[in-house]
């Protein structure tokens, strides 16, 4: 029934080698009707009551979760909500998996990408912003002494970035073990000098940005 083709089939970048077989008609998806059909999004599951008698429909708009809603992990061990949350999670996941997907949104069609539909629950987590890493704690006293020596000898050459690269640690760690007050003062003086060259508009814009940043932790 479905007329949708996979994305691989739509793309014409790679042309098949010419063959001697007789040419057959290919139905592309480039007609208005088929494109419109693609956009038919299936009704949200909660709006489709399963029973004929009137039921309560609970479908709140997506919004930021309330701060008073304690996540499961933060509940103490003896809290009754732990069992409630766990049972809700298992039933809702089972239900979501049991709900049939619309044929137009079946995997292999353009609609199966999650840009148009709410994401289906799955066991996989969203992608991390930064790749999580394990702390290594691999530097010994000898290497720390070496870091301190290099930083002291030539702070211009051995900056925090270079030392961090060389020893495979973070810049924060370098700053922690080998603090160079003179270099820091020099850098801050340089920054001060370049800040003094700012015009009124840039200075105000930076100031506003700092104030906005303070609000991040206050009105979140």
């Amino acid at each position, binding site marked *: 029934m479905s007329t949708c083709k996979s994305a691989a089939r739509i793309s014409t970048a790679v042309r098949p080698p010419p063959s001697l077989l007789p040419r057959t008609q290919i139905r592309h998806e480039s007609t208005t009707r088929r494109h419109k059909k693609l956009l038919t999004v299936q009704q949200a599951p909660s709006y489709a009551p399963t029973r004929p008698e009137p039921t309560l429909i609970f479908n709140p708009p997506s919004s930021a979760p309330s*701060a*008073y809603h304690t996540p499961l992990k933060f509940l*103490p061990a003896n809290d009754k909500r732990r069992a409630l949350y766990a049972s809700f999670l298992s039933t809702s996941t089972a239900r979501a998996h049991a709900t049939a997907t619309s044929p137009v949104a079946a995997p292999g069609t353009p609609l199966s990408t999650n840009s148009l539909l709410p994401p289906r629950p799955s066991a996989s987590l969203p992608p991390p912003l930064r790749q999580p890493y394990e702390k290594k704690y691999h530097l010994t006293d000898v290497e720390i002494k070496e870091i301190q020596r290099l930083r002291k000898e030539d702070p211009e050459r051995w900056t925090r970035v270079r030392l961090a690269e060389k020893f495979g640690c973070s810049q924060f760690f370098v700053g922690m073990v080998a603090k160079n007050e003179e270099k820091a003062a020099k850098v801050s003086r340089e920054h001060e000098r370049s800040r003094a060259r700012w015009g009124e508009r840039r200075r105000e814009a930076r100031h506003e940005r700092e104030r906005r940043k303070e609000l991040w*932790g*206050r009105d979140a």
Partner: protein
Amino acid sequence: MPSPHPYEANQSIKLSALRARLSLPQRFPLQTLARTLVHPSADPDPAFNNASLSILGGNLLSYYTSEHLLCNYPRLPIEVVFAATEAYVGPRALAIVASEWGIEAAAEPGGEVEPGLLQFKRLKPGEGIPAALRKQVPWKWNVTQTHRIVATDEFGSRNAPPTPQSLANVPVPMEEAAQSFVRALVGSLHLHLGAPLVKRFFKSHFLSRHLEISDMFDFRTPTRDLSRLCAREGFEAPVARLISETGRLSRHPVFVVGIYSGKDKLGEGAGASLEEARFRAAAASLKAWYLYRPLDVTVPSSMEGELDTTKWKPNMIDCGEVIV
């Protein structure tokens, strides 16, 4: 006579109206209600002003407020507890409550004044704040956090507030007089009608005022605090994950970032940059930790005079806020 004679209180229409408006029973005497309206600045005689009653009432108010906060939000940081106590029963909040009750002030105190008016010596415009009201000497010169918790008043203030008797014959602003009236009223209710009615009165007039505790936080380094918290409680280290995004290359992108510890989501935040969304999500996760409410709470004062102790359930006591 610096303040109206107690005999006149029975004839006062204003006092009867006030007693009816606050739904106080008839057995609460109007003379006491009249006495709660006399600030020490109007009448320095401790037998006729509200100083002693306001000390009692202030202690009761702070006790009921702090037990409510500590039992219902056992994980709140102490700064937020102080701020919330001040928002419930601080001087300004009490002055607002008094004005909502329709308390009017007399232009000048005196024996001939209608006893239903709040009586205090007014601060003249242009006059400086008197020495008694100005910042007192600190409780201790080295005011540490521990000292603020243990030894100062319920608001954790750095300077001691003026004692009621020190304000005798000193001109004061209306806020000072109004808050002393509310405190004195609570104290006199306790003396005449007993603790159960005061608790009901407190619930209906003070706890019923909506206070958004989730807006009282101010996080500076939420990401660091959160990873300290997870390490302390033995959870997996928090990881920021991108739940959804729109318009990454546009002028107004929106990123929705969730903080996950293992498979569990701790909090979620939206922002115009990845950094902002992560920061807000970490702040939301910390709030989710601090704003935990146990399901059924029995406050200590609810067991006063109870013979049946089986109803008592020990309250949760948390080990404290995250210190980085």
